[in-house]
């Protein structure tokens, strides 16, 4: 193994392509609603794009209206109402994956899901993983209870078609292609070196 200067530089650059590959970035998504009512101020976050049939998180930050202090012992649930005029089959799954969330019940086309802080990587937020099976504008009622106080907040979220369902996986699906290409170049270089 010889250490020509360019070899060293190149080795270093190749080696340091690795850590950036693993760099991650999380986003809370976009703010769907921020509203003060009763003693609470709430902020609802969802992914920037909700897609039919794909698991997504709805998160809620609950704060005291007077002090902005985050409330961590509230009881938060979401009531999901499908778009008007749509027919929701009783068997349609509403939680992101079975086992992911706790469905409290469903009636009159509405489903109530309990949001929990344990389901969020950010422990300030109450999160419920949902899987909305129909496209169109869904109504989400957030019910917040804390001690004797309670409040109800409503927002509408649009759910789109699953056209870009694979998009999130694209980098991971491209990996085999990338490695096969690199391997092909490697084999070509080795054959060329042998010929030389």
């Amino acid at each position, binding site marked *: *193994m*010889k*250490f020509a*200067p*360019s*070899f*060293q*530089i*190149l*080795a*270093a*650059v190749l*080696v*340091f392509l*690795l*850590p*950036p*590959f*693993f*760099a*991650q*970035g*999380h*986003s*809370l998504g*976009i*703010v769907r609603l*921020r509203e003060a009512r009763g003693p609470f101020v709430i*902020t609802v976050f969802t992914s*920037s794009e909700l897609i039919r049939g794909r*698991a997504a*998180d709805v998160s809620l*930050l609950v*704060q005291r209206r007077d002090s*902005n*202090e*985050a409330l961590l012992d509230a009881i938060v649930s979401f009531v999901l109402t499908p778009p008007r005029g749509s027919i929701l089959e009783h068997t349609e799954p509403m939680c*992101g*994956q*079975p*086992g*992911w969330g706790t469905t409290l019940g469903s009636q009159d086309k509405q489903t109530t899901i309990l949001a*929990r802080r344990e389901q969020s*990587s*950010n*422990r*300030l937020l109450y999160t419920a*993983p949902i*899987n909305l099976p129909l496209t169109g504008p869904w109504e989400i009622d957030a019910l917040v209870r804390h001690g004797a106080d309670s409040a109800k907040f409503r927002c509408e979220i649009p759910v789109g078609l699953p056209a870009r*369902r694979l998009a999130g*996986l694209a980098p*991971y*699906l491209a*990996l*085999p292609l990338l490695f096969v290409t690199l391997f092909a*170049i*490697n*084999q070509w*270089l080795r*054959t060329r070196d042998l010929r030389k």
Partner: protein
Amino acid sequence: MQAILSSWSIEPALTFGLSLCGVIYVRGWTILHRLTPALFPRWRLLSFLAGLVSFWFALNSPLDALSGLLLSAHMVQHILLLMVAPPLLLCGSPVLPLLRGLPRSLARDGIAPFLHWTPLRKMAHLLTAPAVCWLLMTSTLCAWHIPAAFELALRSSGWHKVEHVCFVSAALLFWWPVVRPFPYRPRWPLWSIPFYLLGADLVNTALSATLTFSDHVLYPTYAQVSQLFAATALSDQATAGVIMWVPGSLAFMVPAVVLAVRFLSPTWSLVRPGMTLVRGRASAVPRLQAQVTQVSARSPFDLLTVPILGNFLRSRLSRRTMQIAMLLLALGVVLDGVRGPQSSSVNLAGVLPWTYWRAFVVVALLAAGNFFCMACPFTLPRELGRRARWRQRPWPRALRSKWFALTLLLLFFWAYEVFGLWDKPIWTAWLILDYFLVAFAIDALFRGASFCKYVCPIGQFQFITSLVSPLEVKVRSPDACAGCKTHDCLRGNQHQRGCEMDLYLPRKAGNLDCTFCLDCVRACPHDNIGLVAVSPGIDVINGSQRSSIGRFSRRLDLAALVLLFVFAAFVNAAFMTSPVASWKDNLAARLGMDSPGVITSILLLTTLVLAPAACALSAARISRAASSVSVNSRELFCRFSMCLVPLGAAMWAAHFLFHLDTGWTSGWVAFQRATQDVGLRLFKTSGIGSSSPLLSADAVLVTQTLVLDMGLLLALYLGWRLARVYAPRARDALCLLAPWAGLATVLFGFGIWIFLQPMQMRGMVGTLP
């Protein structure tokens, strides 16, 4: 505050990647430190590891969770990514340790050809020019602080990731000419580097001043979000500006001052990292290069040489202890399966075998070796049978192949789907009981380990998966075996029996049929057998005669077993998806059947027998027709089928990891319930059997995809290596490989489709009675 401190979002891919980097570095550093402690002192190791930890901390800690709510937290995260982690990593002089830490063959055959490739060298030369590094860093910094770009990253996790990738890449390049990690040769004189840093600090100051003194909120998302800690969005922005300004400037100024002082010292021109000053001449580099290149070949890792663990594994008692522990667990499963509630999610017979055991076994096989067979409780009856002293006969010659075991494995897959074994604890209990009885009967009546070798379907599953295990029971030195006349590893001696699977170690290759009992290790009088690290899967290429197995090219039964293993991985997972389940039910209803059992049986026959046979036979015929290699189709069928093992193993692993992830707390619930049933009130039960999964849905999907990626890549690599064995010309090798690569890719695509479907849960969620 407690909520904030507990907001960790641990990313498996990041954690695994950084851990791997750390392990490779430590391995390389250990070798180099032994050679030249002056050039690779301990502080370099600590610096590199600190860099990895700070990188991990920035992206997994509560900082990341808060970054969407507080700009100041986001800024601290960026400071860590830009100004803390990269210089710490570079201070570890990571190039040589990382290269040395890689497996020798990977560094030599995989990376070295790229290092000599001229276009890449030119590009690297250009990229590491200090002016380019400076421009990249400052432009990245400016571009991502433009409100539109910053907002984009705040709204989308994908763009946030791109932002971080830009930051880390630019920062690593920027700090390169400053830290000058060995063996980098500086391209700018040392006096210029303080100016280089001051220039970057000017840009940083301008950006931070804009943030600090702006009279409106630059990033609207932070204005929409309710402010925590009673801060307003504007004051949070000003705080972020100050964080960027003060610690950011310090990160540039301190090294600038250090380098200026070094430049002004009388010996500056001679000092480079790792160099010793010998009468004004720097002489360490050539010496080190010579030393590094003279490193002798290392013997492969041997688990049995690891202190404590090695002794534990060698001990006769250790295996018996593990077997008894597994036997007790099996008894618990059987008792609970028979007497407990017939709800699989709260019954030990529903949870332990189908959620935990399967996942742990496959992970152990892929990460180490066949340790389940080592601890298998079903072989305990064999000992009982021997004590009965019945007349034992040899296993019938007609059944000395894998066909019988293959049929049993097929029957098991069929029963699993048709009778829903996962959801019937009592059936699971009876299955385990029957297993003990059959093992006892066969091993009492027949010699050796006939049950393991020719009957046990679980054993066959493990043997096939262990083809891609990284550990193998193997002779350490073939020379020592050459002079051995007693062959104790096979025949045994008065103290220790030999291999009951009839494997003669000097001619044993790979893990096939090896139960990791380590009888051979204990029997060998020369202590010449170890549990040695091997390249996973590479044994598949080996076409030589194997002890007790013969040649792969002549073992049609093995090829069929492999194909069943691979196709069953996909079929078993597909059957738990909602679309396949509904399609099956609809078809049964349309045909007027009460239950979908017949449809399931027909589907299983098609997908586990007809489809694999048709696909592999077609691939073999096309391979033969397309290439000019004179090999018969049967041999191609037998050999190339084996190359699909990694893909099948990856699919099984991805499938079982999903169950483990979603049901990882179910064991605790079942255990609480079982203890209550026997009158032990040890725990205060919550009443809820379900809980949040270990990983988020997205993280599970990514992990599954990465596992399948690795399976596909290894399958393709093995296929290529095997093709090169038959065809020295690359074009012929490609023709040979193409049909098999196509088959692997189709299976891979099917696997991805399965991952994207809503899953039926199989006994994972429940409520305590």
